């Protein structure tokens, strides 16, 4: 069993209504087998929730905050002591960032551009904590990083836009 030492977020999962995983971010080292089991459990629990229930669940010694956006469920496991309402805001912010990047984001965008979804996440969260609270700043950084990918060699990167 994985021991969860104290931090805000433990893992973030995105999955479809059929239970297909679209993104997984683990903020605690977890063995592969354990990850698979957690994904199964989370998916089952969240998909079984009736429509008019609140967005919080208890699982092991963690709180699970989930929200459905279109055909995707966003599921964030937080420490028992953490603020669930803020966790909802975190999920919402991530969705906004995806939306801004992809323009009216939908599940297919996340499927076919999953690595971009991760890059965006990594500009928003680091090590299980929020790193940047400004939407615009995150968006600008992603844009700049994308531009960088077009450049062939990194020794020209120093000239790129510094934020």
């Amino acid at each position: 069993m994985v021991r969860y030492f104290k931090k805000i977020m433990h893992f973030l999962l995105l999955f479809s209504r059929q239970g297909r995983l679209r993104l997984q971010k683990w903020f605690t080292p977890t063995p592969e087998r354990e990850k698979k089991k957690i994904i199964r459990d989370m998916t089952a629990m969240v998909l079984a929730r009736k429509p008019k229930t609140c967005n919080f669940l208890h699982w092991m010694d963690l709180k699970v905050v989930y929200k459905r956006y279109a055909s995707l469920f966003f599921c964030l496991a937080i420490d028992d002591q953490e603020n669930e309402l803020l966790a909802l805001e975190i999920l919402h912010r991530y969705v906004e960032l995806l939306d801004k990047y992809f323009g009216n984001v939908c599940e297919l965008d996340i499927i076919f551009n999953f690595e971009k979804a991760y890059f965006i996440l990594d500009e928003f969260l680091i090590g299980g904590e929020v790193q940047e609270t400004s939407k615009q700043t995150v968006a600008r950084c992603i844009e700049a990083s994308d531009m960088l990918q077009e450049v062939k060699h990194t020794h020209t990167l120093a000239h790129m836009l510094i934020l």
Partner: protein
Amino acid sequence: MSPSVRLQEMIRVIRSARTQGEERGVIQRECAAIRAQFRQADNGGRSHNLAKLLYVHMLGYPAHFGQMECVRLIASPRYNEKRVGYLGAMMLLDENQDASLLITNSIKNDLAHSSQYVQSLALCTLACMGSAEMCRDLAPEIDRLLRASSSYIKKKATLCAVHIVRKVPELGELFTPAARALLAEKNHGVLHGAVILITELCERNAQTLVQFREAVPELVHIMRGLVTSGYSPEHTVAGISDPFLQVRILRLLRILGRNNDTASDAMNDLLAQVATNTDSSKTAGSAVLYETVLTVMDIKSESGLRVLAVNILGRFLLNNDRNIRYISMTSLQKIVSTDHNAVQRHRGTIVDCLKDQDASVKRRALELSLALVSAINIRSMMKELLLFLSTCPPELKSHAASVTVIPLRQAGADVRDETVPNLIQLITNASQLHCYTVHKLYRALVADISQQPLVQVACWCIGEYGDSLLQGDCEETEPIQVTEDDILDALETVLQSHMSSPATRGFALTATMKLSTRITENVDRIRSIVSIYGSCMDVELQQRAVEYNALFKKYDHMRAAVLEKMPVMDRSSMGQTNGESGGGGVQELEPTKPKQPEMMVAPQPASQVGGGEGGGGHGF
């Protein structure tokens, strides 16, 4: 053809597979191709091959053979390859994999890279999967970045430091000076990270905590700035200026103010200001208010502030958003023992939440309601609770069994006279509850016979529903083996105990008598109990015993009819109870009319609820 299309092409092919088997086939082929590509020399498509592998990994297929490729890509001079390499490292490598150590050197180099985007990759990866060893190795580098770099890097370095401190707590000392200086930053991202870092340092080291208490005025100042600042396109969310930062600062203040009067005083006004001025119509504001409440309750705050906090929770109970109602319940539950009176003031709203649509809110409301039962409010509370039980969702029924026992136990001996008959009426009318109510009450009775109201209700239920008890099988409680002798033992104990009041013994005797039609084997034992009490010193008991004896002997043909289960009690026939109607709280069921025997032997007719003529209610 742009290489990225090859990745998307593969995804399309995989998705078009019609069966699991077909998908597996496609993936096996792709993995074989990817493996072959990995073995080749640099061909310009390395990052896309790894990306394909990462996709396959997300579908649940093994991808460990990609670990070394991640290491190789991270060391590449090309940004796009580094980017995917680091992503792969975060997905496939964790501190428990040997390969993770191999990237330490690359990370070290990249932390000093001339491009901040490359530095960013290294920082992110270190904070995600850095092992203790890697953390020790790279901590000085992180400290350097904390002090002299752009805001972009600083904010990431700060969170990296947080990760390092979590992995290797002793390194906290290294980061403390830099952390203190970071509070002067204006950039919200850096400030946010700094607050988290300071929180982490204070939680792990008592001396550091003392040190940072001096920063309370500074934190208060920052917070005040946020609360009073106007709209900012960068940071405003639903009218709240940077709720993420506000919540983190409030959390840090909580830790600093705990058990410390000076620090708590210094933040008192600010907390009152936040509590009063924050708009809670959207989640962002509610999140801030929630954190404020938690902080107020945890530090040494003035009583006025505490009341303000509990009132916020009370207001939350009325919020349209069920999430807010839910967290209000959980918070109230935490403080109900320490701030009982403050929570009691919101009892009405809490009880209303028993009717909430949301099952989680309902369950919380149940727990909280039980905690709020007292001798004074037990009657109205029980009414609400039993009504709740009759309509509650199946998954809550198991909790519900305690609903009958806990309030009675909590109210103790100190209840008003009409409470017992009223409770009995409520139980009778909730027929789905008979089975586990009798189970619960039986267990409670066996454990303790000193609380008269509890014993009386228990005896009555056992008398009425003893057959359910004998069946032993009740879906909502654990099965229990109860024999007829066990039940009679329990009732006899009550009869004989010096703790039992005369009224209670009356209940027990009548219950024993009723069982004569509900049990099969031990009727003789009942006969003998009843005949013994025919010569009891207590006149009331003696009269009953004599009459019950007669029911056995002369009127045996009527015994079954007289002792039939009680019908649903109509509120209008309640006569004696002083019209304290709860208004629509009683559930009317199909009454089962008993056969009216020609002669009424019992002192009270079977269809009337005994309200008691003062001095302890009669049984039936």
